């Protein structure tokens, strides 16, 4: 068992591009669920629409990649309106149903063979990354104390963590304002807020759009990280992992998603490496009669699920949450 290797590889994951993507997605969910109480189970849909819009400008119309950003923004806002207009007047569960379904509809549609001319079907799209790669100031591999990233990954991380910082700043600015206060009030009791003269529908819609835009950043980062984009990057579990990230860190806390993403990916990676090392090689720590390497690859999810359950039981407010809030009888 090589614990030094386990630690450095896990740290690479914890700070790496994938963690950033989930962090951004969770920041969006934090606005939706943590602050406004909107149950969006289709964050992967927002990511996918934004990601594909972003690259389509370059791959379909041969335009500059960066023109994809405004298109991604417009498409994300349209998606949020499309999902929000019929559901936000109704109870919270309806948004949950519609978003989870919409995310699947979007994924199935984009991966459909009939659109493979544009979106590459199951294989996805590549060959748009040039402009981003050109801007990369790093070369070789970069790292510290045994933790190393490739120059390109480090470039993605630089951009990513800057984006995360900007998003956190925006969320912090918004949530300490009267606007954020209304959002939190809506989470607590919609009718009370309505009785005080606030247009609840408009506030919920704004929250849906803004959270969706954070998700859109996650979608664009997905495309940049892999230098390709495909339907498999946006399966339903992406949304649920993002929720896990949010809950680990603590909902309705500005840094909740950041801490959550780092811990989540550290654990996923550390557990994965531990079990693969423990069952692999000659004379493994855990003999084949107990667990084969194939079985071991699933163990990390089992342990992660167990960890999440324990977290919900003993610290349901997450790492950053406020214990006092939980002492309150909600209804």
């Amino acid at each position: 068992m090589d614990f030094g290797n386990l630690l450095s590889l896990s740290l690479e994951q914890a700070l790496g591009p994938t963690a950033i993507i989930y962090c951004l997605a969770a920041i969006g969910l934090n606005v939706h669920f943590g602050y406004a109480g909107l149950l969006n189970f289709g964050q992967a849909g927002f990511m996918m629409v934004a990601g594909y819009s972003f690259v389509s400008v370059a791959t379909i119309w041969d335009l500059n990649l960066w023109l994809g950003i405004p298109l991604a923004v417009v498409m994300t806002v349209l998606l949020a309106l499309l999902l929000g207009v019929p559901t936000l007047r109704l109870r919270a569960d309806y948004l949950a149903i519609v978003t989870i379904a919409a995310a699947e509809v979007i994924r199935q549609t984009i991966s459909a063979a009939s659109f493979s001319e544009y979106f590459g079907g199951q294989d996805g799209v590549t060959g748009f990354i040039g402009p981003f790669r050109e801007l990369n100031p790093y070369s070789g591999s970069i790292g510290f104390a045994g933790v190393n990233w490739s120059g390109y990954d480090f470039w993605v991380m630089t951009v990513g963590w800057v984006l995360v910082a900007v998003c956190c700043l925006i969320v912090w600015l918004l949530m300490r304002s009267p606007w954020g206060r209304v959002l939190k009030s809506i989470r607590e009791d919609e009718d009370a807020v309505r009785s005080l003269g606030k247009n609840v529908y408009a506030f919920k819609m704004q929250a849906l759009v803004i959270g969706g835009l954070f998700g859109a950043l996650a979608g664009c980062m997905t495309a940049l990280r892999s230098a390709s984009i495909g339907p498999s990057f946006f399966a339903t579990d992406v949304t649920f992992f993002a929720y896990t990230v949010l809950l680990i860190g603590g909902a309705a806390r500005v840094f909740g998603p950041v801490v959550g993403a780092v811990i989540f990916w550290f654990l996923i990676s550390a557990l994965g490496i531990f079990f693969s090392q423990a069952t692999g090689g000659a004379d493994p720590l855990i003999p084949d009669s107990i667990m084969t390497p194939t079985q071991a690859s699933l163990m990390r999810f089992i342990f992660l699920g167990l960890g999440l359950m324990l977290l919900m039981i003993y610290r349901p407010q997450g790492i950053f949450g406020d214990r006092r809030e939980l002492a309150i009888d909600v209804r």
Partner: protein
Amino acid sequence: MSADTGSASTGARVLDGVEHEPGAAKPDRILVASNLKRRFGGLTAVDVEHVEIQRGLITALIGPNGAGKTTFFNLLTCFDRPDEGEWSFNGRSLERTSASKVARSGMIRTFQLTKVLAKLTVIENMRVGAGKQSGEKLLKAMFPAFWRSEEKANTEKADELLERFLLIKKREDFAGSLSGGQRKLLEMARALMADPELVMLDEPMAGVNPALKQSLLGHVKSLRDEGRTVLFVEHDMDMVRDISDWVIVMAQGRIIAEGPPDSVMGDERVIDAYLGAHHDAALTFEEEERILAEAEAELAASLEHPEGSEGSEGSDDVEEDKRDD
């Protein structure tokens, strides 16, 4: 207290010429509803022909359980839509208005089951209550320069109200940690943050202990003294008698009586509505005698004419039974 009773009598005097009948016309009405109907399936929960609420007074809406008071409240504040009818606030029809717009136009309600924002502090609850805030605009929200001074003014106002409603010690506590009575106080104080013209209180005394009740009563009276109109639903008759200038009685969705508290409390229709038309009170000896004599007379009559009307009624009954089967 003497000042309060003084203003109560002025209130009563304003309505001196008003007849004590359901739907009576008032000299200066702030809220008018006509032909308001709300059905839930086969049940007509509210069926109000006409009602007017006088400006600047405390009007109580009373009635037995299930009379439709809260539903009527929901209709007036646009939290529910009537099946038919029209209603207006300050002369403006509210037919196509949203609940939030109604609140912005100066009619703010509270709820029977108190709705505090549990995970916000008491002071934050109060700040939410303030009307039109530029910091609630998304684009301005990020830059405190746009809303800092407004927020400061709102906070000052909130502190004053908290002081008045004896909640200032709870300022930084989560609203969810307050007791039931304190929540009622907070909800009322929060409603006042927006300077409403008409305050609609849905059972403000429910679950409030007697000591707090007195101070709540004082608060409601002070609302009137500030020139606001108050309409409240209440079961507590002492409260109704004590503070209201005018009482409207609902039963089975209809308004059955109106008038000053004293005259309404003695009204036959009101007593009937509360106790049932045939009171379940114990019968006196004379009544028992009378009922017994009547029954005996009936029995004697049926014995004298065995094939009379009694018989045919009996066969009718049998037929009905068959049909029912």
